[in-house]
């Protein structure tokens, strides 16, 4: 009987050579690039007079720097414009397709890959962005790389990688009302911390994971990097297959059945052994929110910020430093504390389902006066879908506005910044100091929780507003 993990099955299939020191030359099926982490890689190729080895396996989009208003006008920020035009000329020179701001397929790299059917089960996928783990929702080995590695993939379609350890995180049972994949991610993070997964690749499994939509699985796999893991994935099932059917780059009808047969073999064997194994009960997971400056500093929305006595000694310094930055007190409760901004978007929660969740909660309410909201779709296709469904109208009636796609306030490289000292309930993935702008204070949460804050003006339990 075979007893391989899915991770090992995919890895082995892509191993070009095993080197003496135990690392592998790994073949990469898809390479996604964007404007921020690619220019120095192209510069390196030019210096070495190399071409892109397999340009048909690389796809480019503009997302990190782009404005989310008036995208038809020239980009105002000179440096951003410069980086976007470098991407344009580099992709032209090296024969790589680019979905730039004028293209209907434009959007955040981790939103468009799946949406276009470029991301398919069993693939190896890399991108110069840590949240490449998102693509794991389809049963892929997908991970973020640095610019030197971007250059290596462009030059050889391969990377030299040490095989990571494997981790299984099982979540069984039924999720409670108002609890989303984002809450699962923040919950696991609150349990294992931001280095609990270091050195590992995580497989998420169990009945609660099977019951998640593909969008939900993307949110969860997206956050696996915050657990310190190289990436995370879910074995593909009917939901993944039907999501992919008919998309631009999905196998067409003549290849579909063959692909489906291959994809159906993508699971961990029943006797497979993982280096580390964890399990959680879905029913124990409440809506979560973070109070600190890393994604592991999360609590159930209706509970209090811990006191330093409740933490391990080694955590105290970080904890106190975080509270100082956030201007929160030990043992105080977050519910009811004032919020200034709400950000719905990013590759974690910028998909159509996230906008639907947000809208379902705010419907019939009004935006709180003290709130500035940034509602940013993850891609042009998400934006269009939202408009087709009339979600933009419901948003407008409640005093919100649907913007244009991009990474936006997730990392604040464009104009969408949270001012110093202001609080933002954000559906993105990182609450690091200054992540959303110098001095900005970020509280990570789900689209439901963001919506509850948007209509009340304070941190609020979304369950009170859901029927």
């Amino acid at each position, binding site marked *: 009987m075979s007893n391989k993990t899915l991770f090992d099955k995919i890895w082995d299939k892509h191993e070009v050579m095993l080197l003496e020191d135990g690392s592998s030359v790994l073949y990469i099926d898809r390479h996604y690039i964007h404007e921020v982490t690619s220019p120095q890689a192209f510069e390196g190729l030019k210096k070495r007079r190399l071409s892109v080895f397999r340009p048909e396996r690389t796809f480019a989009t503009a997302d990190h720097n782009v404005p989310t208003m008036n995208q038809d006008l020239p980009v105002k920020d000179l440096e951003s414009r410069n980086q976007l035009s470098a991407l344009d000329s580099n992709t032209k020179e090296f024969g790589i397709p680019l979905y730039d701001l004028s293209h209907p397929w434009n959007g955040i790299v981790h939103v468009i890959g799946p949406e276009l059917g470029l991301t398919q089960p069993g693939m190896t996928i890399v991108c110069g962005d840590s949240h490449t783990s998102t693509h794991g929702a389809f049963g892929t080995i997908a991970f973020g790389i640095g610019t030197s590695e971007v250059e290596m993939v462009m030059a050889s379609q391969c990377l030299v990688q040490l095989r990571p350890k494997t981790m299984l995180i099982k979540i069984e049972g039924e999720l409670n009302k108002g609890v989303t994949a984002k809450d699962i991610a923040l919950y696991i993070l609150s349990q294992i911390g931001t280095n609990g997964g*270091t050195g590992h690749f995580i497989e998420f499994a169990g009945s609660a994971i099977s019951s998640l939509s593909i969008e939900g699985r993307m949110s969860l796999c997206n956050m696996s990097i915050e657990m310190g893991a190289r990436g995370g994935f879910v074995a593909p099932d009917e939901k993944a297959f039907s999501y992919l059917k008919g998309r631009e780059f999905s196998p067409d009808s003549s290849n579909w059945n063959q692909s489906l047969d291959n994809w159906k073999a993508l699971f961990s064997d029943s006797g497979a052994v993982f280096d580390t194994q964890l399990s959680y009960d879905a029913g124990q997971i409440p809506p979560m929110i973070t109070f600190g400056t890393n994604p592991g500093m999360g609590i159930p929305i209706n509970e209090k910020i811990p006191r330093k006595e409740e933490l391990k000694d080694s955590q105290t310094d970080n904890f106190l430093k975080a509270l100082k930055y956030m201007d929160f007190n030990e043992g105080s409760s977050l519910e009811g504390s004032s919020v200034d901004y709400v950000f719905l978007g990013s590759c974690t929660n910028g998909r159509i389902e996230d906008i639907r969740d947000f809208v379902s909660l705010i419907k019939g309410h009004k935006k709180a006066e003290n709130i500035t909201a940034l509602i940013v779709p993850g891609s042009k296709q998400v934006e269009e879908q939202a408009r087709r469904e009339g979600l933009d109208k419901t948003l407008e009636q409640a005093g919100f506005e649907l913007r244009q796609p991009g990474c936006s306030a997730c990392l604040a490289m464009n104009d969408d910044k949270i001012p110093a000292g202001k609080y933002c309930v954000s559906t993105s993935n990182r609450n*690091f100091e200054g992540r959303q702008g110098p001095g900005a204070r970020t509280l990570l949460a789900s689209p439901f929780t963001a919506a509850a804050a948007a209509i009340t003006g304070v941190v609020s339990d979304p369950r009170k507003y859901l029927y």
Partner: protein
Amino acid sequence: MAYEPINTITSTVIPFPVDNVDTDQIIPARFLKATSRDADFGKKLFADWRYTPGGEPKPEFALNKFAGNSSILLAGENFGCGSSREHAAWALYDYGFRVVLASSFADIFKTNAMNNGILVIPLPADIYQDLLNEIQQNPNTQVKVDLPGKHISFRNGLVQHGFDINPFRSQCLQEGLDLLDFLVARKDQIIKFEQNYLSF
């Protein structure tokens, strides 16, 4: 990306005993807009911790307090977590760091650092604490990092600590090589692999 080879480095150490230093702190996103590696990212290293919003150096921040030309940084747990931005490694390198000692490192950062000629060495708790105390008492302490000999030493050689490093990575660092040349030299094998590979 070219860098100076590393062999043996003897230098003072800048103590920075903070855990979970993420790459957004090492270099904030707004400084990632350059399109060339020639930009000096060292000036922006730890920008928001190092300077006031008006651009004045904050005297209490480690890089300002221990000014000098240390090429070794000592940090806490999970150094370099978060974003995959290689600009973090570039900023450390451009500032002059060639070795980062820490309790532990985040995975992507470790790779990025090594690919850019920065040696990263995780330290066990006792050595970490011993070294930290030593530097805090005597900021002029010289620490020797011997890459071929795979050990670090301080207190005039009284403390010696051996470290593990992948031999291939070590060779690359000592010769100033990166993995790109290695991969490009194996194109024939890669093409052969592709011919048998029918994934899509």
